[in-house]
């Protein structure tokens, strides 16, 4: 049953990838706060009920695959037909590819960018005509430290995230005169499902023939161990909901997570040589320590 006293005007929010993780928690937090949520996902029959449960008059679960233009346009049409406007889009759906740059194949890169970059662009383009007419709206994209730093086995993924950051920063300038705001959630390490259900390995890794097999496997395992130890994403969801409700202009980035506040100043103030030396010396479990620890234990055979 609803217990919320509505204090702010109810917003109409479209969210991608709402079947789990940040999308799921954000949909439910917004509904709790009294907003209307179009929770989009690839399989609403299977995953929709869990998102909606208890908020049947506030959340609609519909199908959207951001890899397909028709799908993104249909989601926007649904939101407008149902609610007459779209106040915010939360670009959240993404996938994680692990593997060495030397070994990633064209198809893997195309699929990765098609979801993580072009997909976000498609969904954004689908809602922009409505926002233009409204002369208002918020495009909130979920980004992370992977959009600001990069490292071994993370090359293709970080490339897609850095590209997304660049695209969204440009969009922010372009839309500002129209009264449409663009902001990026800079989230740190949390327990989401991305390290499990949305993680893909390059084919060479899957086949066990990678020249980087051992460090990559250690890395993936380490990341999963860490993910299970981290807090869940409720705080990220709350920050997104706050941004949607915020009456004043949004900052370009909204950092969430103590590790973000620790890493970003280092990244900004260190020279790259210093940053590189620091990253290379880490031996934590997960990114980046598992990689460097494995290489240290098993260095490539020296030439005779």
């Amino acid at each position, binding site marked *: 049953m609803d217990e919320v006293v509505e204090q702010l005007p109810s917003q109409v929010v479209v969210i991608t990838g709402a079947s789990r993780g940040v999308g799921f928690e954000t949909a439910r937090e917004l509904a709790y706060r009294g907003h209307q949520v179009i929770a989009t996902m690839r399989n609403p029959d299977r995953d929709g009920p869990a998102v909606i449960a208890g908020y049947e008059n506030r959340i609609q679960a519909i199908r959207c695959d951001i890899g397909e233009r028709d799908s993104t346009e249909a989601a926007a049409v649904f939101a407008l037909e149902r609610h007459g406007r779209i106040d915010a889009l939360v670009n959240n759906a993404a996938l994680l590819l692990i593997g060495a740059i030397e070994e990633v194949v064209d198809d893997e890169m195309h699929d990765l960018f098609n979801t993580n970059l072009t997909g976000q662009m498609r969904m954004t383009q689908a809602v922009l005509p409505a926002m233009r007419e409204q002369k208002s709206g918020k495009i909130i994209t979920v980004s992370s430290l992977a959009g600001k730093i*990069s490292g071994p086995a993370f090359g293709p993924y970080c490339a897609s995230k850095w*590209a997304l950051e660049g695209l969204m920063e440009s969009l922010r300038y*372009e839309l500002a005169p129209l009264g449409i705001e663009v902001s990026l959630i800079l989230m740190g390490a949390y327990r989401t499902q991305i390290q499990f259900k949305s993680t893909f390995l390059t084919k060479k890794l899957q086949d066990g023939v990678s020249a980087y097999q051992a460090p990559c496997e250690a890395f993936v395992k380490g990341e999963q161990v860490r993910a299970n130890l981290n807090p869940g994403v409720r705080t990220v969801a709350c920050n997104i909901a706050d941004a949607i409700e915020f009456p004043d202009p949004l900052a370009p980035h909204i950092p969430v997570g103590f590790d973000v506040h620790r890493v970003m100043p280092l990244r900004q103030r260190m020279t790259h040589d210093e940053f590189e030396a620091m990253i290379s010396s880490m031996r934590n479990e997960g990114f980046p320590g598992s990689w460097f620890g494995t290489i240290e234990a098993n260095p490539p055979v020296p030439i005779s």
Partner: protein
Amino acid sequence: MATPQVVILTGTSSGFGAAAARELTVRGHTVIATMRDPDQDGPTISQSMGDNLEVHRLDVTDRASIDAVVATTLERHGRVDALVNNAAYLLLGAVEDLAEDELASQLDTNVIGPVRTAQAVLPTMREQRQGKIINISSVAGRMTGPAFGAYCGSKWALEAMSEALRFEVSPWGVEVVLVEPGTQHTGAQFDNMSLVRALREGNSPYEAPCNALIAGHQKYAANRPGPRTVGSTIADLVETVDPLPLRLPIGDEAALILGMRARMSDEEFEEALQTMDNDGFPGAYFKAARQENHAS
């Protein structure tokens, strides 16, 4: 005097690629200068060069052409000391106007292209326990602005890829370097620049600020230095025996803009860009956008 190096370069028909290929040739290295149309563009760069310059066909979106060049290089010279990933182009247009195929092409050349060429030389470089992959980025690799989303997105992706690759291949003695020049007077802003369809067909709501930006930026670029300094810097990187840094900004514009980006907060940088009183990028865009808003 540095030992002659075997260097493969992409996009050598003009600009930085041509300048670097010629400089390396003059310095006595073995230069495999590649381009998409050697019949048309080859003679320009091989003119008055010694026979240590070879011109080959290579299209960074075509793996077969890449593999063929690497195979020929190894047959003739037995090694690959450096790869200069230079081939790229600038796609200009607002994100809202960007068609999927236009974005895909931009990524295919500017990001996946360098990945393909690196992949082709890495097995050799790792076996040699030596090699350099020199990726031509730009100030656009660490900052962005209106109408540059696709291009800067592609260069930011190149930077992320390079940073990861650098860690991945350093255990084998292979180095990865990013060169970051500012605006120079090359074809990048002229015949090598593409506009999104929406602009070319007059369907863009961003037409006025984009056209002002293009005109202003081209005027600015025409007064900038040519590519010889960047060409010479790339040759220096090939010859350097000491360990190289990941990023090397080149020139006054790079020092200014990247310095600002590094020292300022997001908000401060954004404010600086939006209020910059210049006639090229980004001033021309924002002035035209403000005029349009006051008019409507």
